[in-house]
């Protein structure tokens, strides 16, 4: 991964059509939300048929999936600094809390 490299390359190629290709490595924020959501679903033993698939807009991340009983799984995270994630399964809220707290906890021996 080289999300920094565009900064060096940008001055080299300003004015060239190549500039369109100079972007950071994509997808990391979206992946982070998906990882945290799946972490919670597995910890709460939700029987998953389709793990949530996430999309990102300027204002929020939304992920949708389904249980083995075809109940909807919905994950919503405002696209702000706090990134408080809310997960509902079959319309019932099962979790709310910051994405990064889930990520941190997942890597720790408890």
């Amino acid at each position, binding site marked *: 991964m080289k999300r920094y490299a*565009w900064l*060096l390359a940008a001055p080299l190629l300003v004015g060239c059509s*190549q500039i369109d290709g100079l972007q950071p*490595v994509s*997808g990391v924020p979206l992946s982070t939300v998906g990882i945290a959501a799946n972490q919670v679903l597995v910890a709460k033993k939700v029987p998953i048929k389709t793990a949530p698939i996430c999309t990102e807009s300027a204002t929020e991340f939304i992920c949708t999936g389904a249980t083995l009983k075809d109940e909807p799984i919905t994950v919503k995270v405002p696209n702000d600094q706090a990134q408080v994630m809310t997960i509902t399964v079959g319309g019932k809220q099962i979790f709310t809390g910051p994405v990064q707290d889930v990520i941190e906890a997942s*890597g*720790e021996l408890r």
Partner: protein
Amino acid sequence: MAGLSRRAFLTASAGLGAALGVPQQALAQRLADPLTPSAIPTTLDQTILLTTPKNRQYRYLATGPGEPYIPRYDVLGKAADAGRVNRRRSLAYLGHLSDMHIMDAQSPARLDIMVGQSESLWAGSFRPQDTLTVNVAAAMADAMRTVQFSPLTGAPMAAAFNTGDSADMMSSLELRWYIDVLDGVPITPNSGKAGVYEGVQVWAESTFAYHPEDPANDPYGVYGFPTLPGMLQSAVSQTVESVGLSMPWYAVYGNHDTDFLGAIAVSDGLRRFALGDRKASTWQPFAANFLGAWATNPSPITQYLHAVRSNFGRQTDMRSVTADPARKLFESVEFMQAHLDSPATPGPVGHGFTADNVATGKTYWVSDVSPYLRVFGLDTCNQVAGPDGAVPEDQFTWLQDGLEQARAQNKLAIVLSHHNSTTLENEAQSVFGGQRLIHAEEFVAMVQEYPNCIAWLNGHTHINTITPHAKAGGGGFWEITTASCIDFPQQQQLLEVVDNRDGTLSIFTTTLDHTSTPEWTPADYSQTGLASLSRQLSANDWIENPPMRMGSPLDRNCELLLPAPFDLTTIADADLEKAQLAAKARLVAAEKGSA
């Protein structure tokens, strides 16, 4: 279905013994042992986790509980029959490596200085474990070799795949080191002056860097990174003895194997810079000259070369280092040629690339790694600019034709590339034009049309990620992205394709830790001690959000179900057993070779 007859077994083992140069009787005895799941501990049995919660200071690692397989039904679309556990048979056991980022940390061309300008923008330009990449790679090769028999079925590993970013910065040294580690050739991971580290980690003015000899005056020391007297000296002076892989391995290009820093087309000026004897110790002179020249000169490339040639050598924050011609930046075709310049074992010579690739410049390949499994190695990197990738139209068409042919021949197929579906949107084109670039949505839709293509293996993001690509109306394939050897958790992956004998297939994924200990013993600068230290340092690299890169449990040890793409009874048990004998014989021969 019946397996091999005794006569067929003896004939097969005699032929394999002769072909591999192994005494036939000894080989026959080994091959006659039934396949039993390997008892070697894997992440199914134990994991590596951070110890101290949320104190925002230096953390240590310890052994955590194992993670059993979690079944995933996203592509199958329904729960699977529980009876499959007792029916399944292995069709292929495979290894997956990616993003090894082998690094010559002392190269003058290395832009480690830029992390001093912005940690977030330049994450990855400097990591505290930069000098230890060869040690990690050797420990990972050891791990792959240790689990060369499946923890699930005992099947022998048929092949391992490396999905790119092998050489961090296009140095010929890095390229040679990476291939040698996997081929089992000893390496002393040093350049410049013999046995002496020359670089930012010992220069006082490089305050952005971790100074293991005395970190008191850098941010790493404040954070609690340890004082490690003698560590750098050990890293650059010890010979790393890699056991190498025992199974055939195959490689594709990553963006770091294609562009400078994974994003910039290489110029003659950059090539000279890499071979020079001056290295920046802070970012300011670099940025001042770089941007200043750019502002007054109409040609960006000329401006950059002007900065490199005319200004760097006179700056106060430039240090003299020992020049080394081995740091030469390689050309695209030299990447393939280096793979051809490798020993016959573990092979194959070229590791996927052929003499035809070198002659034509074609950077993608196809190979049958077993009678039932065809692998397509793509080059999704953009030689113009940008870290992300795309599929050029010629490869897209070639792959489509190849998948069609594989389907007609009842062969399973796996696609390899460096980039994954979240990083396949690079639009960069040469000013002289180029072929159409295909991006994720169109690429996935094409692959979905071929049910025999069961998986797409890739890397790039350094995050364990498993993504289903279910097709509307049924079917689809699994995309499996493995983490890296450079960032925490420093994991790679095992895969096993099994026939459930009920019209479904499963792909078992198992994350693989390298064989160094989770807990680093202070002052252990042995070969494996340095690998253990690297993992610990990477777990504390606050720029990289280390625990996120582990992925979720649904990205690690999983059983990925999907519909069988054709009648798998056409793969006879006897033929399967014969293919497994050949794979097992190769592993036995490699044991002999390394003894």
